[in-house]
């Protein structure tokens, strides 16, 4: 791969957190035990405009990895390059949709979405833009609603709209649909594919759902249990729509289940 082919590059990345202790120990006895290793030697790269999914057991450090790539946290070793430049901090070109609800509860849907709207354009233009994005995610008529007055799925949509309106270069999504019911999740999946086709952002997407990953991803990264290491880095060059029940994808699906220590047929 040439350098221009890499949107994001993660090299020899390590991350550990200080372990909280109720009882203070003398600094002499094993200082290394105070550290809890979360990510161990992560290496991968992502091509521009690709949809990359991350799966792995709970607590293996997926969210931590994405937070580091987005610049919210610093690794203890290794580095992250975006467009060949080292990441220094968060950027409004790299929008993160957090695992927890990230809409400001004190702003209405349209005020929240307007946060991402073009800062240079005039108020009238911005209003139009917000309206357009509300419409895009099917929230027309709910612009004056506060987040607590929206359903879980609508909140997620509003958050996606707030991210998309910035026309992000990279979109980070941390289990954005995990809290939704199965049907809504399927629907959101489809919308994500449309969004990706339309916006051409590079998307990094965490999920617990193997099928979701197989349907969405151009590249699939599987992390091992903590400390998270890359267990597999799979390319999925299959066209959409994808049928997981037959052919290559069905074989791959079985393989991934086994890789994660699960049985595909119960």
């Amino acid at each position, binding site marked *: 791969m040439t350098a221009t082919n890499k949107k994001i590059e993660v090299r020899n990345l390590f991350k550990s957190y200080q372990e909280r202790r109720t009882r203070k120990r003398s600094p002499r006895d094993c200082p290394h035990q105070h550290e809890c290793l979360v990510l161990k030697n992560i290496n991968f790269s992502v091509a521009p405009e690709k949809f990359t999914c991350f799966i792995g057991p709970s607590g293996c450090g997926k969210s931590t990895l994405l937070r580091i790539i*987005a610049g*919210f946290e610093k690794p203890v070793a290794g580095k992250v390059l975006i467009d060949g430049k080292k990441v220094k*901090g*968060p*950027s*409004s070109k*790299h*929008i*993160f949709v*957090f695992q*927890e*609800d*990230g809409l*400001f*509860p*004190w*702003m209405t849907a349209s005020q929240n979405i307007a*946060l*991402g709207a073009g800062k240079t354009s005039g108020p009238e233009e911005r209003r139009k833009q917000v309206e357009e994005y509300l419409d895009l995610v099917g929230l027309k008529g709910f612009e004056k609603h*506060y*987040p*607590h007055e929206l359903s879980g799925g609508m909140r997620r949509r509003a958050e996606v709209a707030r991210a998309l309106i*910035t026309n992000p270069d990279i979109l980070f999504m941390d289990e954005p649909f995990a809290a939704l019911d199965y049907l809504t999740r399927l629907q959101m999946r489809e919308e994500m594919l449309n969004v990706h086709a339309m916006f051409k952002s590079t998307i990094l997407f965490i999920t617990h759902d193997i099928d979701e990953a197989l349907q969405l991803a151009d590249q699939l990264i599987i992390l091992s249990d903590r400390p998270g290491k890359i267990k597999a880095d799979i390319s999925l060059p299959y066209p959409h729509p994808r049928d997981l029940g037959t052919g290559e994808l069905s074989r791959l699906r079985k393989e991934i289940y086994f890789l994660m220590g699960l049985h595909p047929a119960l």
Partner: protein
Amino acid sequence: MRVYRYSKYLYPTLTFLVLTVAWALLVRLLHVSPYKMPGPLAVTRGLWHLALSGRLFDYTIASLYRVTWGYYMAVACAIPAGLVLGRWGTGRALFNPLIQFLRPISPLAWIPLAMMWFGVGDQPAIFLIFLSSFFPMVVFTMSGVAGIKSTYLRVAENFGIRGTAFYLKVLLPGAFPDILVGLRITLGTAWLVIVAAEMIAVKSGLGYLILDARNSLNMDQVIGGMIIIGITGLCLDRAICMLENLDSTRWLKIYR
């Protein structure tokens, strides 16, 4: 809906009514001396006299005037200070010990100093109210900022919300639930303090009214004054509560 209405207006009225009747009966049946406890009728008469002379109105306004000035000045200084200190670790390390040291000193202990500095009149009273409101309000605002979910701060950072916009659109609303509690508690304290301060530092206001009535052994006016203080305090509290029920603050529901 009907039950709700009842519980909102009828029941409180009922409580007060029953208490008043019990009060009247007790005073009558036990033959309590009017110098120890006048009955409700005597108190109403006393209040009527005060109202007719115009003192009741003037004194209530005088007290409210001092509370309003002291309180608003304190809130206007404390909220920005609390927001800044909530975000600024060094500032917290510098000022927090000072705030925590000054906070437990009763504002009443400042009365001698306040009188030396400002003489007699509105100013020392306003100063005392300021003191009583400022420190708790700073602390409430700071803890409000500390309680903002880290996700919201990350979102703000992510969307490049900085400077004034960050303070007005993120920190202030984020800390608002705690600020509201602070506003309510502080106003209650301010109202407590003003009455006490007026007994010492000034010659007008509801606190002075009570002291003056006691000196002339008008116990009916003493109790009348207490009732007016209670009612005014209640109204002030209701006014603050209205902040929670505005259309633009209906999102506060999630914090209750």
